[in-house]
């Protein structure tokens, strides 16, 4: 049984086709990255999985059941646009949202207490949401997504606005939930997060799936066509248009995408000839960021 099975789903709003013939298969226990440029149809797809919207065509199954009222309680959701009742107390909001997901109020209250404790918000339990800082509100909202121990967790940009300490806290909880068997759909524009956490991805553009599958397999299919170099000295040795298709400079590190058939040895020779001192010279698979940009711009071309 798959955690989510989306079969040939199409969703139109008037003349705009938001999602077109999309199929997604998400294994249980996986961290699945749903990627795509702004306006690609990610939110619409997620809303259909959560049964907020119904597809015009196609079918959606969540944990073996057709998406509907009953599958809603199986899903935890952290939307990209955050927000809670500003004038309610933290505890009250969380108990209310947990009860809506099917917990009894007594159970919800004790779990809210545990979670607030764990995320360092215990002292804020009786404060109004409005009195919390952005980061604290974000953590409170994360609690709302996970409190009913959902087998399927949908997180839309879970790390924005969090400092490294809190981001790590949230990441650890995500991995812990996966250990316990939850499936996670992660929607984000931060490709390094996807590379770090996701097992499989689907890249959507204009409502269509343009790249889907196991993340490692996808990267492998591109082959090791990228040189990752760290060096000190003359920058100009990489001025080799016959060999290098594209250069990305990240401060100390440079990523050079090689033209098909280009021999990395030639670049090494050029470095030596320019008297550059190399501290790193590695042939790697292309970063997801480049694959993303390539795929999306292919579509536009």
């Amino acid at each position, binding site marked *: 049984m798959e955690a989510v099975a989306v079969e040939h789903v199409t969703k139109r709003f008037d003349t705009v086709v938001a999602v077109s013939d999309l199929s997604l298969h998400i294994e249980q226990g996986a961290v699945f990255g749903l990627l795509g440029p702004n306006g690609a149809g990610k939110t619409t797809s997620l809303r259909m999985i*959560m049964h907020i919207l119904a597809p015009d065509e196609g079918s959606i199954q969540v944990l073996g059941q057709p998406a509907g009222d009953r599958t809603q309680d199986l899903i935890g959701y952290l939307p990209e646009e955050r927000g809670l*009742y500003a004038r309610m107390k933290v505890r*009250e909001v969380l108990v*209310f949202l947990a009860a809506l997901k099917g917990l009894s109020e007594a159970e919800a209250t004790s779990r809210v207490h545990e979670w607030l404790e764990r995320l360092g918000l215990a002292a804020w339990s009786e404060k109004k949401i409005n009195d919390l800082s952005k980061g604290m509100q974000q953590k409170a909202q994360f609690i709302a997504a996970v409190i009913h121990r959902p087998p399927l967790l949908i997180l839309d940009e879970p790390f924005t606005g969090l400092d490294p300490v809190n981001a790590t806290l949230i990441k650890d909880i995500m991995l812990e939930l996966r250990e316990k068997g939850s499936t996670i759909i992660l929607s984000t524009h931060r490709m390094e997060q996807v590379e770090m956490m996701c097992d499989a991805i689907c890249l959507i553009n204009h409502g269509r799936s343009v790249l889907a599958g196991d993340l490692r397999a996808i990267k492998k299919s591109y082959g090791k066509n990228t040189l990752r170099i760290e060096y000190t000295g003359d920058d100009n040795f990489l001025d080799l248009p016959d060999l290098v298709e594209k250069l990305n400079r990240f401060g100390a590190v440079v990523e050079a995408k090689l033209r098909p058939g280009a021999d990395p040895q030639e670049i090494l020779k050029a470095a030596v000839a320019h008297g550059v001192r190399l501290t790193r010279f590695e042939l790697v698979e292309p970063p997801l960021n480049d694959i993303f940009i390539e795929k999306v711009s292919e579509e536009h071309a």
Partner: protein
Amino acid sequence: MRKIWLVFKREYLTRVRSKGFILTTVGLPLFGVVIFAVPLALATRKTDHTLRISLLDNLGGLAPQIAAGLEGKLPNGKPQYEIVRVWDRPSSEEQARQQLNDQIRAGSLDGFLEVPKDILDGKAAAFHTRNPGDFQTTAALSHAVDNAVVEHRLTDRGVHLDNVSKLVRGVGVSMVKVTKTGESEEKGQTFIVGLAVVTLLYITLVVYGVATMRSVVEEKTTRIVEILASSVKPFHLLSGKILGVAAVGFTQYLVWGVSGSLLTAYGASMASAMAPGASMASLHLPASLLVYAGLFFVVSYLLYASMYAALGAMVSSDEELQQVQLPVTLMLMVSFIIYPVIMRDPSSGTSVILSMIPFFAPVLMVLRIALQMPPFWQIALSLVISALTTFGILQVSARIYRVGILMYGKRPSLVELLRWLRYT
């Protein structure tokens, strides 16, 4: 059902516990007491001090009769008025007036009553005082002067009387309301009850309709609606919300109803103390009126609240609300503004037709029931039309709500709204 209950409970509890609710619920009756009861209590409280007045009688011979008409006693047994001195036809009116005014300014006199020479021809007497706002004294003086003048005129024509006031007392005309079952004396209660019920219905529909709308917008602007939509059916969310706000309204009316009836009881006792006979105690509400008002209220509250909720779902911010709510609020306002048409003739053709229009029915049909019981078939027809319209509007509103809560940005045009209705 459980989820509707949860939404209902949250909506109700957060509202009832809010400062605004406590302030209006407790504050309004208090405000009512302050503006209604306090001046009444102060005004009817007789002073314990005798008013010292003089009479300046330029006609001559009228002063004893006036003085006889001023023989009231204060609660502490002292006379209400003390006639300090009577100036009968002084040699110089101007000089006498001057002296009396000086005495008033010096504080040895509270006022003087000047009777003009030609008072018998209809010229008014004048009371000179530092406090011309004391309406009890004004009433007592004019009563005394009137009687003295009438008595004087009659004496001139050869009629001698002991007690003029008994002779000239008017009787007035009382209104008797004829109903199917009998008659009842009218003391303004039909008018007051009708107006009160209509005003209450109107205000309630607007206030709680707008509260529902604001609640929808709040969930949109805080974006929590996205989480709610992933847990609850939009229709359940809408139902819980509308019922929750309605329950807040009922709570408020309960508080007001209890404090209001206490206040009226107090007001009635004060009023009868002031003017015996003019009792307000006859202001009772017929049970049939309450039942019908309740029925129409439930139906029309659902109608208006669902429309307001749909409006709330169409906008993305509080600022836009003012504009979009206008058509609906206007519709309610019209029904309130045209009530005099019904008042004038509750069973005219125009009245019957107006009270059948579902958007006006809650106010206008209930007003007709309060004034003059319409035939049952008219009430039933109006209620059925209202219920059917409400049912239809609820379907449309729920669809607009369902789509609208997830839409941000530009407000939809009418054409777009029609398309929303077809979304799944």
